[in-house]
């Protein structure tokens, strides 16, 4: 494949960025939900 480096890099960046962002959201909200007192959590 010509320019394979560029093409694969663009796919890696695309899905890598989305994946990193998704993981970031989940980790951050887990941390937040720990800090929200139990009496404030509608789900507990």
């Amino acid at each position, binding site marked *: 494949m010509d*320019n394979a480096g*560029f093409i694969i890099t*663009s*796919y890696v*960046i695309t*899905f890598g960025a*989305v994946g990193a962002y998704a993981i970031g*959201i*989940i980790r951050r909200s887990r941390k937040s939900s720990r800090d929200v007192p139990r009496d404030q959590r509608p*789900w507990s």
Partner: protein
Amino acid sequence: MNTSSSLDASPRDRVTGTPFTRGLGILVLVGMVLLIVLGLFVSPADVNQGESVRIMYAHVPGAWLAYLAFIVTAVSSAAYLWNRTRSLTWDRIAGASAEVGVLFMGISLITGSLWGRITWGTYWTWDARLTTTAFLFVTYIGYLAVRGLGGTHQQRARRSAVLALLAVLEIPLVHFSVELWNTLHQEASVAGRGTNVDMDGLMLFTLFLGVVVFTLMYVWLVLHRQRSLALDDMLDDSGLDNALTARRAEAERMTH
């Protein structure tokens, strides 16, 4: 339970994940694998561009979903500003959607730049499409910064909603820049004015799949981010309560 106006998380917003988003997540992963297989291997190379056309399947859906995300931000902002539908949930959807839009626009800019390097021969040039896109990208980074300026949740919501309604007006300018001015960037492939879709069938199908996969990713990300923003707001609201709890504990120690 909580009927406070500043915190209208409904009891359904339990954690950022729900059975629905879990199913959606699995669908996204399957779609991603399909898109990679079709985009990198099954779809044909282009007569002029050769293999580099494969970058299109990430670049074009990224740009479209960024437009969609910014439009959703504007619609949710209007819903917040309208008295009858005012709810901070709309504000958080607007914020989450703008954030995902900036992510997708960033992806589109980077993949576009790589694509440009191997087809145009340059990573970047200041033609009308690239310049207006850069402006749109910067505008929404500014929007996210305005959301972080502090104040009450209501102040944040009102400020950012007005900005979102102004910023969305840039989208037609970006989309039609390739027709309004002479640009290096090619004209719209599918949704252009007076352009008929002239694309190989399998290429068009792969592009369509890319749009579907990016749409599913968008919904998943916005749902989760919106809930995580709700948690952040709760955390903000509980800041004082925590301080009071600490103070009360201290007072209790003193009395014993």
